[in-house]
């Protein structure tokens, strides 16, 4: 369970998450991709905290902040999706292209 291994796994999660964020049409699925990316960040952070930062509590704090980011983004995302679904009946990105050029 070396640091490299942790970071590689985190990289894998990040890659999967990015794939999801880029490829999914549905807003919800897209956000799942984003969550996986946060997931990866937390894992990497935990690894680095444990191996390279000497357990600096700022790392823990950072992890809390990461989770806050995740929570806030998800909540806000859902609120916005709800809103846009209500008046636009849009649940995939392709339906929102009025604002362009």
């Amino acid at each position, binding site marked *: 369970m070396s640091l490299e291994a942790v970071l590689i796994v985190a990289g894998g999660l990040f890659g999967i998450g990015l794939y999801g964020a880029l490829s999914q*049409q549905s807003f919800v699925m897209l956000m799942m991709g984003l969550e996986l990316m946060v997931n990866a960040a937390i894992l990497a952070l935990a690894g680095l905290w444990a191996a390279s930062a000497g357990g600096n509590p700022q790392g823990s704090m950072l992890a809390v902040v990461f989770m806050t980011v995740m929570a806030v983004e998800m909540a806000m995302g859902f609120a916005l999706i709800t809103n846009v679904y209500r008046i636009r009946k849009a649940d995939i990105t392709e339906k929102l292209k009025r604002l362009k*050029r």
Partner: protein
Amino acid sequence: MTPWTLPLLPVVAATLMFAVRRRDRGVALLGVGSLIAVLVSALWAAVTSPTAAWRWGGGLELTLAVDGFSRVMVVLIPVVALPVVAYAAATERRGRSRLLALLVAFVGAMQLLVLARDLLTLLVAWELVGAISWALIGHDWKARGNSQAAAHAFVTTRVGDLGLYLAAGLLFAGTGTFDLAAIAELDGARLHGVAAGVLVAAAAKSAQLPFAPWLFSAMAGPTPVSALLHSATLVSAGAYLLIQVAPTLTSVDWFAPTVAAVGLATALAGGVVAFTERHIKRALAGSTSAQYGLMFLAVGAGSVAAAGAQLVAHALFKALLFLSAGVAIHATGTARLDRMGLGRRLTWAAGLAGVGVLALAAVPPLGGAWSKEQIVAGAFASTRWLGATTVLIAFVTAAYASRLWLLAFGPERSYPGPQQPVVRPGRVEMVALGTLAGGSLLLGLLWVPGGAELVESLTGGSLAHGTLGGFVAAMTAIATAVGSVVWLHRRGRLVSPVGAELTRRSEGGWFGLPVAAGTLVTGPVLRTSRGLAAVDDRVIDAGVRAAAAIAAALSRTLARLAELTFATAVDGIAGGAIRLASLLRRRVEQAVDAAVAGTAAGTDLLAVVSRHLDDRAVDRTVETLAVRTGQLGRRSQGSQTGLSHHYYLYVTVGAGLLALVLAVLR
């Protein structure tokens, strides 16, 4: 009293005349009166030799002086101008006040010219004379041709003015002053430049080859205008300048020969033109060129004094001849020599004109003969063959002079068509003619011993001692010429003599020189001008356009290549991960694609470039720089597809590039 009176008095008078132009009598009186005043002050100035200066600042100063030959000129000008203006006042009807005012102003400008002691003042006067002559020549402006002729005259003489600009600038560069006397201090290239400038200026003003044809255009003006222009003013300026400056240019070895050559050529050519021309004023104009050619020849031969004497003599008889021509034209209503023959009907006029013609033909004891003898002497003193040529010129001169008189004022020849009653000249006209004829006769006094010394002292030059051989040769030539012409006249072959076709090759006469000028100078300039204007409207903008187009095409090419690279990367990696098998085939395909697309892009670029370099038909007002930038703008807008997942791709690729840049650049 300063010399300023001489130029300013006429100018003020002219202004006044223009102001009171509604009162005909007042204008005429004012004109004549002012000229008399000028004459008086000129005589006074000639005696006292005053000087004056007018500071312009910035290192510029106008300096005037009445000394040397200008003592003669300041008197000569009003002397000639007076009868001419009186004649004009008596004969002209259309725009009389304007004409008189301009004539008087012209006298003022000319006075300034002869008073000038530095090149700046000279140039000022030189150009003013030219400009007023434009107004005088184009006096009858309602006919379109006249103003064109005036413009032609002005522009041609202005080419000569460049010579003076050149001379003035080089003189200043060399010596820090414009003083005419300072020319002697110059050396090297600047001296040559000054000499060339002076020569060009003088040649243009005095209607020497190759500028001679402008005098024909100048015939568009009323006859008094021609009389004044050709005699003591305008045209004489060139010869006057040479008389003033030539002595300081002796160190320029090519100057004198060139001046002589120009004069010689013009004298001969002008003589031929005068001999063949059917239009009386044009014939006289040709003779003017020829006579000034003679003066050039004299200057070139080193006989400045003879040139000066010839200048004075010519001024008097040429004014007389032009006014006579005016009388003749007035009498018959035509300027054609073959329709005249007024000898029986206008006896007095014919007689007075005869005086002028004799002077022109250099028949002793007239002053004209004296001065020509001096020129012959000078030429012989220079080189033998120059002397011989001068004798030939004397022959030609006598020939056309006698032809002119015989046709215009000689015994009436029968020609087809009804005899028209002639209009008789009025008293003022006859007085004017008489005055000038008197002046010409008076010059005969030069034959009196002491005349030579007087001329030498007045011009500051020296006269060559004439040889008897030269004199006899010249007299023989003149006599032969007169005799031949009379003989020809009897035969009725004088109107269209041999060689007429040669000189009248074209409308403008002068051996087709105007046509040549048109083909060689005016035409190309105008064509260039129109071409450049077209270029300016299209191509300079098009240059900007082409640059923009190239930029756009480049950006397009780059974008295409980038797209290609991106696609290649995407497809390549994805293909590798998903469908290994087809990788090779696809790669090859893509390479081909890339090559094709690259070529296409290149061709596109080339096409755009060539189209725009050759693009003259595109709406010229279109500012294509903006248009091209605008197209770039639309292209940029195109990136904003409105689709979030595209934006996500931008972000992702952008982040990758960011990392790359961070890693690579420092």
